[in-house]
């Protein structure tokens, strides 16, 4: 198992995703002899996990069962321990495409936060790329570095604990792409530029507030970035369900004598209904997360 390479079987030391339900998943560090508590009972790693195929259905001690899935950055995003606000897959997917990430890309990122985006970047740039990620919060930087190791992607990433606005990314002229998710991205734009390859590349800044976007766009333009473009992507999840629509009873129709009807007094109101498959969006859409501002650094 690794976050950048599939395996078929669960092994000691893997991180597996225990799938309880659509909105309940938990990452589990697989260890010989260890146990994991779920609401369906205990999972015994040695017997229930190790040697099993990823995707297997595992029966827990209370008789309930769970699925054990191979980790992916997307499953990690919905199950990781939150140490900060995180980026979700809808934004991550857009960022990955719009930054033109691919195997071999060198990427700078700040802040690392809980590592949600970092894992998705690593998946895409492996096996030949590299991620330089900067996190000013020491505790978080240490924790995420530990996770990278557990997820067997540490050879692809360098974690730096510093202030990107003051100290930059710690590298110069190497990046194909830079991602910023910090309160004042405009203060890091010149560092982003410095970190990027001379031939140019793409930059993205994520901000929840339009004022941050405005200042960032201004600074990007001043620093000579081109194709500055701000967008927002929202996800709608459609709930598939069967609904029943009653038909109105307009009473007996004297103009239709061929209708086979009993005397209306005895037939009573008809309760006919039509059943159909439809979708309903959830009442509250997971709304605004942030604005994504992209730009191109030209060759300098």
């Amino acid at each position, binding site marked *: 198992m690794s976050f950048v390479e599939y395996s078929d079987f669960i092994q000691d030391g893997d991180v597996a995703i225990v799938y309880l339900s659509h909105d309940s998943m938990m990452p589990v560090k697989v260890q010989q002899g260890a146990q994991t508590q779920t609401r369906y009972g205990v999972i015994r790693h040695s017997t229930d996990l190790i040697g099993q195929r990823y995707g297997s259905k595992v029966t827990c001690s209370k008789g309930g069962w769970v699925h054990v899935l191979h980790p992916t950055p997307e499953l990690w995003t919905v199950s990781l321990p939150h140490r900060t606000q995180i980026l979700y897959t809808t934004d991550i997917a857009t960022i990955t495409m719009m930054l033109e990430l691919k195997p071999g890309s060198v990427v700078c990122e700040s802040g690392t936060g809980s590592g949600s985006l970092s894992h998705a970047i690593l998946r895409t740039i492996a096996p030949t790329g590299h991620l330089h990620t900067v996190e000013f919060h020491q505790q978080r930087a240490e924790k995420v570095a530990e996770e990278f190791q557990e997820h067997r992607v540490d050879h692809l990433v360098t974690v730096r604990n510093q*202030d990107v606005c003051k100290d930059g990314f710690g590298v110069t002229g190497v990046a194909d792409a830079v991602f910023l998710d910090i309160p004042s991205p405009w203060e890091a734009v010149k560092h982003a530029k410095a970190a990027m390859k001379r031939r140019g590349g793409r930059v993205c800044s994520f901000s929840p507030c*339009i004022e941050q976007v405005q200042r960032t766009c201004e600074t990007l333009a001043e620093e000579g970035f081109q194709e500055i473009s701000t967008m927002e992507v929202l996800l709608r999840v459609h709930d598939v369900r069967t609904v029943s629509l*009653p038909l109105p009873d*307009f*009473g007996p129709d004297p103009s239709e004598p061929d209708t086979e009807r009993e005397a209306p007094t005895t037939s009573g109101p008809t309760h006919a209904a039509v059943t159909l498959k439809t979708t309903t*969006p959830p009442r*509250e859409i997971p709304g605004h997360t942030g604005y994504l501002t992209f730009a191109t650094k030209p060759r300098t």
Partner: protein
Amino acid sequence: MADHEDDDYQCRIKEGDYVVLKRGDIFKAMQIQPRKKVIFEKQWFFLDNAVGHLYGATFEIVSGGTLQPEKPKDTVSSDGSKEAGTDNRNIVDDGKSQKLTRDDIETLKEQGLKGQQIIDQLIKNSSTFRDKTEYAQDKYIKKKKKKYENTVTILKPSCRILALMYHGREPGKICHMRYDTLAQMLTLANIHAGSKVLVFETCAGLVLGSVMERMGGYGSVIQMYPGGGPVRAGVESFGFPAHFHDMLHEFPICHVNSLLAGTLDTTAKDTNTDETKSNMAAEEEQNQPEADEQGSMEQQNMEINTGDETGQDQEKTRKEAKAQEKKARLEEKRKKLAAAAALLEGRNADGLVIASRFHPCPVLMGLLKFLSPSRPFVVYSQYKEPLIECYTKLREHGGTVNLRLTDTWLRHYQVNSPYMSCSSQESTVLTPSLKRKSLTSFLY
């Protein structure tokens, strides 16, 4: 047209008024009744003290459930501390930053501390507040405020406020109709004073009441209702003046076919004497239990205007009165039916509004016959598929122009002057509404 002194009368809360309570984004419709205990957002209180105050006033709920007019606002933290960090880097996420326990807070509450005072205590006892950025501090205060505030604002009901209330509290009751969708419907159907409008809805009366508000007591509204009786809990909440109800008529859809065929008898007769004609009274009786059931369900869930006065000893007298009542009710119903039938017979309605849990297609095809040529109609359904069917059927059927299947997206923006403008939030449902400038079918 100037603002006269007597305007004031309308602006003040009176006993018997229908009002809407508000805290933050939470609304609840209510009638002002003396010494009536009301429960709102898990707090109980009496509205008596609100009488005589202006609509829009905010009250603090003090001990004993008494309302006390709020003093001028004091939004800045009372100890004046405005110290803020520049980022959150020094905040360690150990869940131990708040020194006050849940029990401590309960004790503070018992000591009679009010919302703002409790929040001040929370800030004082938070080890990380000072290190948070100004934005994060602001977010923190807002969150806590929501939790510990105990004020209530009293509003005059309106279509806008009741639509917000229903969508927030009981969307299932109004087929998940959003207020912006209701707004589209009222406008697309060209609802205005002096016209004759047909309404078929299962939205607790919200749509009906909104149509009535827009007609201002001029013209006539005919509620076409399914089952045993019209549902109107929502109409009451509007608190319309009495004369508004003069324009409201009702017609049970189970008589639509006989009305169209000219066989509906609405003259006053004893029950069941004429079985060859559409035996309206029999059906009425038959449908009554269902209507009661529907009505009482309505009452249970609506949480508005329910009294506690029904004692068990009243049960007896009630039963005796029931037979009498029933007869009077039937007679009244017959008169109402006759009046509604008279309005419908001309097949010259100016507007048709359909918003129900029923399949919209047969409802529309049935009621369209009552519409004058060149008049708009609008059909709402919570689901798109049946509206596609509606659309297809109408196109095949002919007789309509300007038919459109639409929905709207609504988005709220938080614009916090002067510093932070943030976090727009989307609240959207697929709410198609079908519009038609009609040339009714019999024209072709």
